[in-house]
């Protein structure tokens, strides 16, 4: 899956899951999800489940950081690096 597609699917997921109460909310690829009140720590749990089922990416505990998952762009980059058919091996924490 290419980066554009990953980004689009992740954006759709975030909007459907965390922003359905705020349809007018403009979320940029580089907006901080935590600081803008989109995802909280419990929301991250849901996001991890999504990354596993949608892209086959299992995020290791030590990879649950803002640098890896802080923005839509960060997430897409992380998935690209770790998806089973991409550059990574499907498991984070390498």
């Amino acid at each position, binding site marked *: 899956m290419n980066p554009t597609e990953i980004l689009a699917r992740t954006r759709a997921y975030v909007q459907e899951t965390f922003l*359905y*109460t705020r349809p007018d909310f403009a979320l940029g690829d580089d907006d901080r999800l935590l600081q803008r009140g989109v995802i*909280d720590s*419990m929301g*991250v749990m*849901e996001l991890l489940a999504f990354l596993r089922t949608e892209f086959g990416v299992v995020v290791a*505990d030590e990879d*649950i950081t*803002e640098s890896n998952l802080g923005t839509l762009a960060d997430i897409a980059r992380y998935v690209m690096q770790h998806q089973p058919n991409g550059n990574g091996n499907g498991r984070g924490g390498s």
Partner: protein
Amino acid sequence: MCGLAGVARREPSGVSIDMLDRMAAAQRHRGPDGSGRYADAQVGLAHVRLSIIDVAGGAQPLGNEDGSVLIVYNGEVYNYLELASELYAAGHRFRTRCDTEVLVHAYEEWGTRMLDRLNGQFAFAIYDRPRRTVFLARDRFGVRPLYYSISNGDLFFASEVKALFASGEVDAALDPVGLDQVFTFWAARPPRTVFQNVRSLEPGAYAIWRNGELHHGRYYSLDYPEAREEHPTDLESLDALLQSSVSLRLRSDVPVGGYLSGGLDSSITCALAARQSPFALRTFSVTFDDPQLDESAFQQLVAGQLQSKHHIQAIGAADVAAVFPDVVRHAETPLVRTAPAPMYLLARLAREHDIKVVLTGEGSDELFLGYDLFKETALRLFCLRQPQSQLRPRLFDRLYPYLDARGRRGDFWRRAFLDAGSPDDPLFSHLPRFLLTSRIKEFYSADMRAAVAGTDALEELRASLPPAFAAWSPLNRAAYLEMITLLSPYLLSSQGDRMSLAHGVEARYPFLDTRVFELAARLPASSKLRGGGLREKAILRRWASTVVPPAVQQRPKQPYRAPDIPAFFSSGAPVPEYVQDLLGEANIARTGLFEPAAVRGLVRRCKSGAASGFRESQALVGILSTELWHRQFISEARLEPSIVEAGGR
């Protein structure tokens, strides 16, 4: 425990007995053992009674020797025997053995200053006929409720709001600012309620109706004169006060039972009660199908040690949904948690076993810093003192151990605490909770947003804080905020008084004895939170080592929770019809408080099993309970059937 109601007219235009009977009937559940009323041209009083002390005597309204002073009263004054002795020595003579009459004579002797002498949980109205005044008062911590409304120049008052509406002279309408407070603090802040033109008398306050005007006063304010270090006699004082507090709360002419959660606090109150009670103690516990919520192993352990007659109310998700409409009707407010529902069922169980009085452990967490919120405050302060430290924020991973482990570690978890506000903000300790709760407001409709535009629940709270607040330590500020925003208007009301009195059961709170509170308020923070701020209720644990089993004495605090989303949406079970109806687009649009598309999104996620976390569970419960409340009290309100019983004057 009882219910009171009444009216004081501006002019002597008459008070209808039918109206008083309707007001009494609306809160008959509070006092199923009897009722009475009094009316003259200007003032009417009504009362429903739960007989606990002087079962044969004590009917109300009750007067002094010549009937010039009359009282309707809900509650208990535990030091009434001591007060009666003092009043007897001053020349007063008694016709009954009940605490109600002591209050009448106390008023004659000391006037409004009588309040300083009362140790108890109470709300009352005293009609002074010669002076033509009505004196309303409420206990220090707000255990017992008292609402009032001024309508067409006349004062209406009652233990429950539904009695005001039953008068037929007070209209029910939503106060959007009150609702906005529920979606900030979990409850409206007294004196505000969720009803327009209905006020709650504040804890520790009184009011006097004179010449058609209500004059307000305060006789008690919370204070935290914290000592620098623990005094050698503090442990001994705690022992004496807890023993005394429980002993006073066992004063009753009917058997007293105990709620037993399996935690430290209720284990203490049950253990002390078992030692002192002349009756075999009956204990009552809630158990949950969900093992994450269940504490039955600890309950069994304590009940076994006390050899109490133990009764269990098992709670499955469907049980919560089945009683939730009744819970909201009794609570008279929207809720953001379902936790009152099991308490409603537990009170019913106690009543089925002929128990009308129970001791509970409520109040201890506020006095001895039991909640994780206090640890969180201490840790946030600790981390902000060295913002560059990479190690300190790791301590946050040890908070809230009952939540899913993967969600409570790492950057996102820690940043949520570190970014949650400045220590300079008076609300520092509570901002994470207040801001999380406020996320329900994302569901507001445009009309609801417009209705609360220009109001700010947090700013109003900041502006209302007492002058002494700034001088208190951060942890005592947190304790104070917890007392006024959660304990009184939610835990003691929606989850306390309303749920137990729905079944005619009176709850008594040994930790909320004024003397126990004042001792706790004097203790240094180090006597409460130890272990770098991670070990709660330290002095209480030390004291309890000989009172409760070691496993209970040492166990960390587990918050009491109930199923939220699974109560209404669980796989394989049909969604209850009333939930489908109330959350349906037609109803949401008709009520107009929430955005139908947003609610549709929430319902979709609940149905699919995807909804999770506090954000969505509180939204579901908040929206559903608001719609229930609106239907019950506003859009389809009806008066309770009237009753007419003898016993009035």
